[in-house]
């Protein structure tokens, strides 16, 4: 009944194949284009001097007021289609324009390193 938890991912991780099909993710990015007829939106983010784009299927979150150029946070499931790559079927699409992206990235990394730390200590505890 309850959906799976949406873990934070970076936009460049979505297309690189680090995320599995069907996984619930939370991704941020700048809205670059929106096609209401096809319910398709594209988010983009800069990383290592490269632009990464994420395709979002917006059927479930329409109608929404698209602000091109604004930062958005999308929450949804990964779908991999032939020829299109990974698309996120959005359950939640929030405009978070003004977000401090660097700080958000820090926070995500902090959380991840904490979980890794945890797993390591529990592995050590089990091993000993």
């Amino acid at each position, binding site marked *: 009944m309850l959906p799976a938890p949406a873990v934070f991912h970076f936009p460049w991780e979505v297309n690189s194949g680090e995320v599995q099909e069907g996984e619930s993710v939370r991704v941020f990015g700048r809205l670059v284009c929106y096609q209401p007829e096809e319910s398709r939106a594209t988010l983009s983010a800069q990383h290592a001097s490269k632009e990464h784009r994420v395709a979002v299927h917006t059927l479930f979150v329409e109608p929404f007021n698209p602000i091109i150029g604004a930062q958005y946070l999308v929450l949804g499931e990964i779908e991999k289609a032939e020829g299109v790559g990974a698309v996120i079927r959005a*359950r939640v699409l929030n405009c978070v324009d003004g*977000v*401090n992206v660097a700080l958000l990235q820090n926070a995500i990394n902090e*959380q991840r390193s904490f979980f890794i730390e945890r797993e390591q200590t529990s592995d050590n505890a089990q091993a000993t």
Partner: protein
Amino acid sequence: MQRAAMDPAEEPPSMLWGLDPVFSAFARLYVRDILVMTESTQVPGIYFYKLHPIYKVDVLGTVVYKRERDDFFCYGVDDGTGVINCLCWKNDLFKEEDPAPSGAQHSDGAQGGFNLVAELKKLRETQRSRCRLEIGELLRVRGPVKTSRQQREIMASTFYKVDDPVMAVQVAWMMDVPQLYRLCYDKPPQLQPDAAGDSPISVVGKATNIIKDFFKQKSVTRFRPYDVQDLLQPLIPCQPQTASADQEPVAGPSACQQLRQLLKEALQVLQDEGVVYRKVKSQDEVYNVRTIRDVSIPPVTRQLVTLVRTPAVAPSQVTARDTDLLIAVKDVIREDSRREKYAEKGCHILHVLSAVRQRHSLNVSKATLQLVLKSLECNSDIVSTSEDHYTAF
């Protein structure tokens, strides 16, 4: 990921749960941890995270599921690590109908610009809007954890929509929670009431309190260390008196040595505080107790004064020798206040200190003098003219 109940042998006894501060707080655990917390075998309804007893939690997350009934909302909250149901009861806000229109007309003319009924209505609307959320909005929930129908859920005691347009709140939460885990939740709780891990500071604190109580009870004016040594005996962990043949000799300081060390530390603390001082530093260790009693005030008034200004002290017979230091300080201030040099400003505390040291005892510390001056001032024997300056009339 055990959901089974904890091993009863591992669980700390329920009597001691209150000693863990996490138990009384709304614990900011990840939903993932809340879902797999083991339930207590002693008291169902209490859960354990790494030996910390958990009763209530605090969660911030996105609403991904919503179910509304007449009496309550059920929101599925996703914080990035897990999703949990939160049962949010509707309070009277939702049950009340709109106020009768006649009420609105009454106050219109009277208040002029400020219409109380309309403002109250606006307030109610705002409160309602903070409770009714849609999927995608940020929700903050605090409340006890319950397990119903094999599912964990949070029974919200407080819940509200969080306005977070630039994700500041979520980012702050993501940064704070790992720290909380490192500092509190992942550290084993100190649940032993008289732990062997008692820090030496607190034991010395207890020792000084015991000695101070003794002074008050027995109205001590002078003592030697061995007079009070026995009082501290209960604080030293005693050796087990087993007669077993294979009892190993315990390495480390013996009980006697520990006692003497504790006594030394306690007396040093009391000296630093100014409660005791050694009038004459000789081989014979005699300590004088700074007294707050004055000969001139009759017993009843003295009791009142001490009750008001200082912790209650039982009056007892006072001999001239008890108030040596008190009288010495009073005399110094009285005499020097007459001199022209100090007539206007009064005597500075350091001046008094050097005079008292010359006259009475070299070992009076500034702390002791400060306490004496304070008690003299309470008795109105001297007056402070400004910070650190005193005079007498």
